[in-house]
């Protein structure tokens, strides 16, 4: 669904999203990596259980909260990817 505009990004990093190994480029946000990997869902609303996904992409809506390297409720849109990063979404816990 999403595709990278720059066909030759400088460098490559590898992270896992819910156990899946995913390639990304330095400078990508975790949100970008999630969207490129076709796994946009970040978790479920604690209020009504509906699935949520990044919405604003700029730190305002808090719809993109995921666990990053064990740290709960991190904003995927504001966190740059790092080699070896482990991302878990709330969706996979279901």
């Amino acid at each position, binding site marked *: 669904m999403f595709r990278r505009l720059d066909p030759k990004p400088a460098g490559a990093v590898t992270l896992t999203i819910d156990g899946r190994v995913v390639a990304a480029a330095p400078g990508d946000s975790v949100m970008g990596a999630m969207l490129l990997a076709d796994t946009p869902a970040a978790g479920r*609303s*604690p*209020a009504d259980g509906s699935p949520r996904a990044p919405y604003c992409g700029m730190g305002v809506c*808090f719809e993109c*909260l995921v666990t990053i390297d064990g740290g709960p*409720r991190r904003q995927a849109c504001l966190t740059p990817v790092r080699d070896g990063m482990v991302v878990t979404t709330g969706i996979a816990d279901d």
Partner: protein
Amino acid sequence: MRRSEFDIAVVGGGIVGAAIAFGAAGPGRRIVMLDEGDVALRASRGNFALVWVHGKGLGRPDYARWSARAVRRWRSFADDLAAETGTDVGLEQRGGLLLFLDGEGLTTQAAACRRIADDLGADAFPVEVLDHAATARLLPAIGPEVVGATFCPLDGHVNVLRLFGALHEGCRRRGVDYRPGAKVAAISREPGGGYRLDTAAGTVAAARVVLAAGLGNGRLAPMLGLSAPVLPERGQILVTERTGRLLDYPTGTVRQTDEGSVMIGASKERVGFDTGTETEVLAELAASAVRMFPALASLAVVRSWGALRVMTPDGLPIYAVDPSGTAFLATCHSGITLASVHAGEIAAAVAGGTLPDVFAQFSPERFADVQAA
């Protein structure tokens, strides 16, 4: 310049103006609602969203009665809005608590509630005094420092942004002509009757005028021979990330919204027209909220803001009508609570019906001494 004819011009599109316009609108009645643009001082979008009577009206039973009436009307008001606009404003009204971290505070509040009940006589509404254990039965998340609470079963809260949206949608469906970007600069009486309003988007003529411009009323009221000594009072509010159901009832300072966020509020500061936030004030609000509900300590704060209350010298509403019965003023703190009666009695009066007692009880004449001094 555009010139148009209306039966009623409502100045201000906040909760107060929108509630009155919504209630006054109907077939054959031409109503225009003149508002500023997106950037405006607008208490209606920065408030704490309580529908609340508990503790109000000490020494002023008429205000306690008016608030109780508003709160009792709220369910059917919310149902009407939902039926007409399809928007559920999220009214939860199973009661509300004022929590205390010190025994003296609780004793004082309990005594105040008793005095209000005595003043109201047969009209008294129930308020219970709860100890720690009884409070914990309603709100199991309280911390050990909470000594107790007062509880009033009439109180509740709403989703105020949906209320704002529903009122505007309701106005639209009832044919109200909403004009944003139409700040009113001047209002004058026409020689043959009616009013001329000069706005940033042209001139409007209307047979009746309703001033519901919040803090803007101070400047506009004298143009109609009325007075509205309103002053800004800032309230800062914190909002946490969403979390599972933690609080089944709202309290005066901490409540969980229907979408899962916890709102913590609100400071009371006289800082002029400054809508900013200050870390020390927010930290104090957060610290006291965590003493009330220790589980809040692990939640991230996602937003904070400052908003200006439309405050009158005694905190009570101001309703006024000029001698000709064609120029009205309605302004208040607690405009969320009072929205049901603004859409009811006040709107009916504006549309030409009978004036409810509140026009005498809450006339700005009570501030005559203040103004003379």
